[in-house]
């Protein structure tokens, strides 16, 4: 199994754009996108249930960054491929999908490729399905409960109104929603073991993907502006009677 993992700036810190490159600032340590920890956990569980197999990781990040990958390796993944290349700066989702699809091929044919539905920093939300198309695979996006029976995958897929029951032959690609499984905390032993697990670093050119970066993105950012802010309202500390303010506000709006 192959899991796509993104290493992102800590989402608890305010994000900002680099005004010269017009890309998200990714300085400093990157962490494993929490959304991807669900995919890692699911892959580990599915391999356990299958009674054999291996979980590999693929990731694309600047500056040879591996700290997020190590987190996933500490959970139990066996190895990883990192695509890191200054030329990739400004790449759009389609280029990212091409790069990750090529990286997955480097690991050989997987039975299942797992990704999150979208990253927590860029949230374009198209990369998994684009990878499936590039690799000629069937796909189930927004999968929650997932089981594998022989060469058939069964999944519940989120819909606007509820969920659908889907079957899909392997090999396949799925994107999984957060909360689908409980990601394990890496053990001390896992963290130590992760330090010596193999991570191969390659460039886009090594994978034969061109053009990349802004050159392949087919878009130009022409304006970045502050959104009109909402006017600050009234903030009060509850002294036991603050509910009256809520009632008055609802009355004023004629909701009650």
């Amino acid at each position: 199994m192959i899991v796509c993992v993104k290493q992102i700036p800590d989402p608890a810190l305010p994000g900002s754009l680099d005004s010269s490159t017009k890309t998200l600032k990714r300085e400093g340590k990157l962490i494993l996108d929490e959304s991807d920890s669900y995919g890692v956990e699911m892959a580990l569980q599915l391999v356990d249930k299958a009674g054999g197999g291996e979980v590999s990781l693929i990731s694309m990040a600047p500056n040879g960054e591996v700290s997020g990958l190590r987190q996933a390796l500490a959970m139990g993944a066996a190895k990883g491929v990192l695509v890191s290349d200054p030329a990739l700066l400004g790449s759009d989702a389609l280029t990212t999908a091409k790069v990750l699809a090529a990286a997955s091929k480097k690991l050989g044919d997987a039975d299942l490729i797992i990704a999150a539905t979208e990253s927590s920093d860029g949230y374009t939300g198209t990369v998994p399905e684009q990878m499936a198309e590039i690799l000629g695979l069937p796909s189930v996006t927004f999968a929650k409960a997932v089981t594998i029976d022989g060469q058939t995958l069964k999944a519940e897929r989120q819909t606007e109104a509820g969920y659908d029951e889907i079957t899909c032959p392997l090999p396949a690609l799925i994107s999984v929603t957060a909360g689908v499984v409980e990601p394990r905390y890496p053990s001390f032993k896992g963290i130590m073991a992760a330090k010596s697990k193999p991570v191969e670093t390659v460039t886009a050119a090594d994978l034969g993907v061109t053009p990349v970066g802004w050159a392949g993105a087919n878009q130009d950012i022409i304006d970045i502006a502050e959104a009109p802010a909402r006017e600050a309202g009234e903030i009060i500390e509850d002294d036991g009677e603050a509910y009256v303010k809520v009632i008055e506000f609802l009355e004023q709006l004629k909701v009650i």
Partner: protein
Amino acid sequence: MNIWVYAQQADGKLTSATTELLTKARSLGGTVTAFLGGDASSVAGELGEFGAAKVYATGDLGGKLPGAAVSAAMKAVIDGGDSPSLIMLPQSYEGRDVMSRLSVKLDRTVLTNNIDVAVDGEAVKVTTPIFGGNTLVTTTFTGAGPFLAAFRPKSFAAEAAGGGAAEVIAAPVPDLGATGGATVNAVHVEETSGPKLDEAAVVVSGGRGLGEQAKFEMIETLAKLLKGAPGASRAIVDAGWVPYSYQVGQTGKVVKPGVYIAAGISGATQHMVGMKGSKNIIAINKDKEAPIFAIADLGIVGDVHKVLPKVIEAIQNR
């Protein structure tokens, strides 16, 4: 300019995201064509009313997921010679899958999460909110079309134009090979009673600050008293307290009610982008530094377990 709109139907009617996009497409000038995965017989009239002169329809998908099927049908029509300059899609589950596969088939970028679009000659630019909506980025497509753009629900107001029924043109799904392997076997609906979350005039949402699943009952009770819909933050949906259909936010529903009450919700970016278009926002949270207070019209710094029961009781006693 020739514009396609990926149209979706539910219960024999167009989804609101579809009629919003058709309305906007019409205002950009040129011709508007709808592309529908499924049978168009029950919606051809409505498509015409909203300005689509014709609709390409794949016919029944036979349980195939639309991502692979509809994108392949679109590619076949484009290869056949009818190539649009711009394809607008709703940022829905199906819309995402269709545009992703189509972007690979056409080798074109796709710009998602947009809230606005403008056309200047053959140039198309779209606007996307980032950082929880604090910053607006405007991007123009370069290179050759078709340009692919997806829009958040409720970005535009839907308005009928009063045209006659759209001409239905068959756009059959070609052989999908392995990519068509996923099949829908059963459909489950989780909607609750009362108004729909994305249409309700009042939305009462709960978050992790409720502390435990049983306390969500307060949210349900208050929503019912205000004839509104209950909603939830991603945190408690992920925790399994309420079904996904309750989720307000980036990956959930976009709501713009008259009144939004956020109880025990701190206001993660994920959540804020789904509700900051609400006309009036009331926030109750014990952390006075919570980001939700920055957009609240009325903010109560306090314990939801103390404030909400009093609000509920006061309304019940009226």
